[in-house]
């Protein structure tokens, strides 16, 4: 059974999502238990896959073949749907699996039964399946399909609370932009299919030489994916979507954005790794800088706690783009500092998932107790909700990059790596961090400090458990970053930085 672990991680949430409404008809408890089981099973598969890949290299799984490792049809041509999981995919899978394990128990208590809980759980399971599919897939068309699965499921989650006037509005806007990005990805895949007659990532990567059609396709890929990852001039959907979705489900939206970012790296490093100009690297780097500064300034003027945290989350995307962008700029020479910046950018994905996830859970807990997220009305919650206040403080400090928390560990790698390329990059990154500290000091002060406020009693212990898991993660990643950087992040960064030949060999042989 364990040879099927990568596909089981995707297929079980898919089956679980379809089965959840049926089980809800039997009993709600049955459905809740089933959802938890599915998420735990998927998380276990993800963990197993990661452990296996870190010890023994890339894992290829071919669907529908006589043998899971039979990648090539007679004639040496890959035709089947296949999953190609390398260290970077496994890293993304781990992030998704961990956040799902935290988010689902929280959501079971957070979303009231009469507000479409079954629907929300079904959509979240489909979203999880889509995210893992994006991380593991080895061909462009399935990437597109999973991109659309995540788009539709994500917009369903954002907009399913139709009685709130803001939710459908956010969902509609997000849906238009997501569909556009998906369609441009498909158009780019079609360009490559027309030229080379294949959709397999490894096969295409071996063929791409940088012709006019290749370049056109690269531009379309970039435009579509830059929109999906919420980089600066096209980030408008992100605060709407993050802010209006139920807080427990926003975690999955954050992972969805990160896995799109992974898609961008996959296209740039693996697909176009052999034929890429430094201009693209500079584009990613400068968009990253723009994203972090614009989002930090916008967070400064927000009065809605959810929207404020959402802008904070968008600004973190900028750091990842800066870190990996420096790696892209220096891809030709592969100097050491480029790899340091890459490690920082990729480590920051994990840190961002934990910190932003914890912040959104705190926002959810605040909204659950007070029924509002407006900072002008909130205040003094620290007396009644000391645990939530502590978690919010911890996550804000980590997000703003205060030592010795995990945000600082990844940001110092990004600062030092990008400083060697150009000091201006590092200076802007530090400036954005300071702004974020100001933003979150204000948010913490506005929500939790001040005279004691009345709170709704009986915060479910599951809330605190989920938040505690993320808080412990932040502390552990902050205090022993070396272990995680060496064991998890460095292999993932190496898979992008040096691993293209290995990726091709795993699928094409030789």
């Amino acid at each position, binding site marked *: 059974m364990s040879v099927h672990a990568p596909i089981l991680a995707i297929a079980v949430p*898919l089956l679980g999502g379809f*089965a959840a409404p049926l089980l809800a008809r039997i009993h709600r408890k049955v459905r809740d238990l089933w959802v938890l089981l599915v998420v735990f099973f998927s998380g276990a598969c993800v963990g197993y896959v990661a452990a296996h890949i870190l010890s023994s290299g890339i894992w290829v799984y071919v*669907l*529908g073949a006589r043998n899971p490792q039979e990648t090539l049809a007679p004639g040496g041509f890959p035709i089947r749907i296949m999953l190609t999981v390398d260290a970077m995919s496994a890293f993304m899978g781990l992030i998704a699996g961990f956040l799902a394990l935290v988010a689902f128990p929280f959501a079971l208590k957070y979303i009231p039964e009469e507000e479409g809980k079954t629907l929300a759980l079904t959509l979240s399971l489909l979203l999880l399946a889509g995210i893992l599919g994006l991380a593991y897939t080895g061909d462009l068309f399935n990437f597109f399909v999973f991109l659309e699965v995540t788009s539709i499921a994500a917009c369903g989650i954002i907009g399913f609370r139709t009685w709130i006037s803001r939710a459908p509005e956010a969902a509609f806007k997000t849906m238009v932009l997501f569909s556009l990005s998906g369609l441009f990805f498909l158009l780019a895949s079609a360009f490559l299919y027309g030229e080379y007659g294949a959709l397999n990532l490894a096969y295409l990567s071996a063929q791409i030489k940088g012709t006019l059609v290749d370049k056109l396709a690269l531009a379309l890929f970039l435009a579509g994916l830059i929109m999906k990852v919420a980089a600066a001039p096209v980030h408008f959907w992100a605060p709407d979507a993050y802010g209006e979705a139920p807080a427990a489900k926003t975690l999955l939206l954050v992972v969805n954005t990160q896995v799109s970012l992974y898609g961008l790296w996959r296209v740039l490093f693996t697909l176009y790794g052999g034929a890429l100009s430094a201009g693209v690297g500079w584009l990613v780097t400068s968009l990253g800088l723009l994203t972090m500064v614009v989002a930090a300034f916008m967070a400064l003027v927000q009065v809605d706690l959810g929207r404020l945290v959402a802008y904070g989350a968008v600004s973190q995307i900028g750091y990842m783009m800066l870190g990996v962008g420096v790696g892209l700029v220096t891809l030709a020479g592969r100097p050491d500092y480029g790899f340091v910046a890459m490690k920082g950018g990729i480590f920051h994905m994990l840190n961002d998932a934990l910190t932003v996830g914890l912040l959104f859970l705190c926002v959810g807990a605040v909204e659950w107790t007070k029924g509002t997220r407006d900072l002008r009305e909130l205040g003094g919650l620290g007396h009644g909700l000391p645990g939530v206040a502590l978690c919010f403080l911890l996550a804000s400090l980590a997000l703003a990059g205060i030592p010795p928390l995990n945000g600082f560990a990844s940001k110092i790698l990004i600062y030092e790596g990008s400083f060697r390329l150009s000091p201006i990059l590092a200076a802007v990154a530090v400036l954005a961090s300071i702004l974020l500290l100001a933003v979150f000091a204000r948010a913490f002060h506005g929500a939790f400090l001040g005279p004691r406020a009345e709170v709704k009693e009986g915060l479910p212990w599951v809330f605190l458990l989920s938040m505690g898991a993320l808080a412990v993660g932040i502390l552990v990643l902050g205090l022993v970053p070396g272990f995680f950087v060496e064991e998890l992040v460095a292999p993932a960064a190496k898979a992008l930085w040096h691993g293209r030949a290995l990726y091709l060999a795993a699928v094409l042989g030789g």
Partner: protein
Amino acid sequence: MTVVVRTITRVLLPISLVFGGYVIMHGHLTPGGGFQGGAVAASGLALVLVAFGVERLAGKKGLLSVLESLGGVAFAALGFLGLGVTFFANVLAGSGGLFGHPVPYGPNPGDLNTAGTLPLMNWAVGFKVLAGLGAVVLLFGLFGGEK
């Protein structure tokens, strides 16, 4: 709606359902398949909605959602059926008995039963699409009804 529309709907509904079923059933041999057949059948539902009003179908919402979930579960389960080999492997094709023998290579008329799991998946998708599109049309009707 007028009696003309209602009468024509009574005539066309069975035809569209049967034609949808035909398209689903022959999905692995001729153009068509689960989605197309399901969409054809769902057009019958839409016709009923237009001719007889939302009230006629409003009670069927639960049934449609169950049918949709069942379709999805059946599709995923058929994928799991191949786990002895690989996920989605067509283990039923050419397995003898009801599923017949392997088909010869090259142009030939083909049989309805020899494609293994493919027709079953077509049926699963067909029911899912029928129920899903039906539910969407029904919901639009319900939404538009109130003001």
